[in-house]
């Protein structure tokens, strides 16, 4: 519907780090709309602000200036706990560095967001096991991150982000540590979940093959959106 606001709307979003001479403009006036159910890939050189943009969209970080509307709601007007609720109920995050709890089994890691959703234990375990099976980690449920390979850890992180059944999946290089076969499997999984659950996906990637799964590719340079491409065509 044309009248609907986009699910995510960034207007002039700027994020500064440091002060004076050391000031870094990690984001520099980003305008971006993402529609419900859309699959957007963000590409760009290292240090161009991709992760910073993901953190802002994921309500983990707040813009220094500019506007961020989620379903038409101004995020700047929400307090810490309201943002936590937003993350809990709407967002799933796959971090660039996985961010799994150490000395904690894969199963417990995947259960974590479900605990904060207040889900009963039995249901939690069932859901977490299901998510782990989806990413091909059946049989590794009780392994600690230290007992898993980098790619396996990455898949635990993917399972954790998906287990809570989010509306928006924010994936920062979700296939960075996976071989081509695994990467394709994960991308197929994301695409099918997107179709089943009307999942909105924002994915940072360096690989053209992975970006090719997206509806739209955004190219960032120096904290700005440099160009956009839709379905392989230059916009």
């Amino acid at each position, binding site marked *: 519907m044309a009248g609907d606001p986009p699910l995510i709307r960034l207007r002039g979003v700027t994020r500064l780090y440091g002060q004076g001479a050391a000031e870094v403009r990690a984001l520099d006036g980003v305008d971006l709309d993402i529609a419900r159910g859309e699959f957007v890939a963000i590409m760009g050189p290292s240090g161009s602000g991709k992760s910073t943009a993901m953190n802002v969209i994921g309500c*983990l970080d707040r813009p220094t200036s500019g506007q961020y509307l989620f379903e038409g709601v101004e995020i700047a007007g929400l307090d810490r706990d309201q943002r936590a609720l937003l993350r809990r*109920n709407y967002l799933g995050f796959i971090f660039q560095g996985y961010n799994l709890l150490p000395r904690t089994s894969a199963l417990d890691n995947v259960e974590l967001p479900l605990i904060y959703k207040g889900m009963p234990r039995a249901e939690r375990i069932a859901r977490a096991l299901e998510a782990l099976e989806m990413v091909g980690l059946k049989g590794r449920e009780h392994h600690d991150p230290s007992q898993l390979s980098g790619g396996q850890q990455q898949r635990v992180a993917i399972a954790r982000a998906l287990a809570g059944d989010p509306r928006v999946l924010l994936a920062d290089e979700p296939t960075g540590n996976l071989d081509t076969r695994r990467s394709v499997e994960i991308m197929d999984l994301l695409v099918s979940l997107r179709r089943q659950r009307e999942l909105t996906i924002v994915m940072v990637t360096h690989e053209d093959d992975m970006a090719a799964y997206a509806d739209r590719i955004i190219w960032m340079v120096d904290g700005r959106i440099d160009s956009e491409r839709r379905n392989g065509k230059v916009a």
Partner: protein
Amino acid sequence: MLWETARLALRAILRNALRSFLTVLGIVIGVASVIAMVTVGQGSQAQVTADVAKLGTNILMLRPGGRGMAPGPGGGASVARPFDLRMVARLEHGLDEIETAAPVSNGTATVVAGGENYRTQITATDARYLEAANWPLVAGRNFTEAEARSGAAACILGETVRREIFGGLDPIGQSLRLEAMSCKVIGLLAAKGASSFGSDQDDVVLMPIRTFQRRIAGNDDVGTVYIRVADGVATEDAAVAITYLMREIRRIGPEEEDDFDVIDMKQLASMLTQITGVLSGLLAAVAAVSLLVGGIGIMNIMLVSVTERTREIGIRLAVGAQARQVLMQFLVEAIVLSLMGGVLGIVLGLGLAAVAARFMAIPFTPDPAVVLLAFAFSALVGVIFGFFPARAAARLDPIEALRHE
């Protein structure tokens, strides 16, 4: 959710079992020493009270001494003039405040019977002593008035002496040799056990005081007079009357000081109770300080743990934990930790107290109120010293926390 939080806290604690144990060691030691001190203190107070109750609170003890002691023979150490039986009789009949006045002398003697040799205490007294001391017989009989008056060779054995000399045999009617005299066993005292001070009260032979004076001591002296105050008379009033009459009997001039002491067992008892109370209070205070130190130890480790687990906190915040939930997690963790320390300390403290009570021959009387208090206190330690680290954790910014190395 709280139960869930406690379960997760327990898991976090067990994940670092050794460190958790070291963390709560302060609490364990603190609680254990408080519990042990208080329990032993209460046990010894109970023992003192029981001893006094056995003795009776209406008993006065009269002994030669005081400040106005006559110079001893050879000008050496002063020795007060001894008492004698005539003085005791005058005292007893001269005052309405006195119900009975039992003369008692103490000594030691070697007992020989059937080839067994045993050195024991002698308590020489008269027929009223058993009643005055509230000490029942388990076999045989008391001295008769006639035996007491005539100084008959009859004796009553304490349980320890009976065991040492006669073993499994019935001692009643048997003869035993006490130093140079031979005497007949007529009764057996009920076992009393050790006194508050640890001496064996059953290691004793009772005999008529006249017999002791004539056959063992070789003089007419009386060591102590146990006075039972008449019903309805305050021991303080009786003590004044006794002092007055004693000064008259012993012809002490108005300028001279008493050459005897009147000791009120009630006062002695309350003094003893007070001393043990103050002592155990002091020890408990020292132990309480160690509890405080234990609490600070918990705070320290929890703070370290917050820093160490900054990333974990960031992850929890990122997946939707609210500040309140992170606060609760760390607080519950601190409380569970210190409660575990508390329970461990209680068990250890009671164990120590039980062993100490056995060695000190006092009753082991664990006080549920004290145990409950220690439990509540360790929870409080967890709340107080867990709060700051927990708040520090809850205030972390999610993105900062995630970036923490």
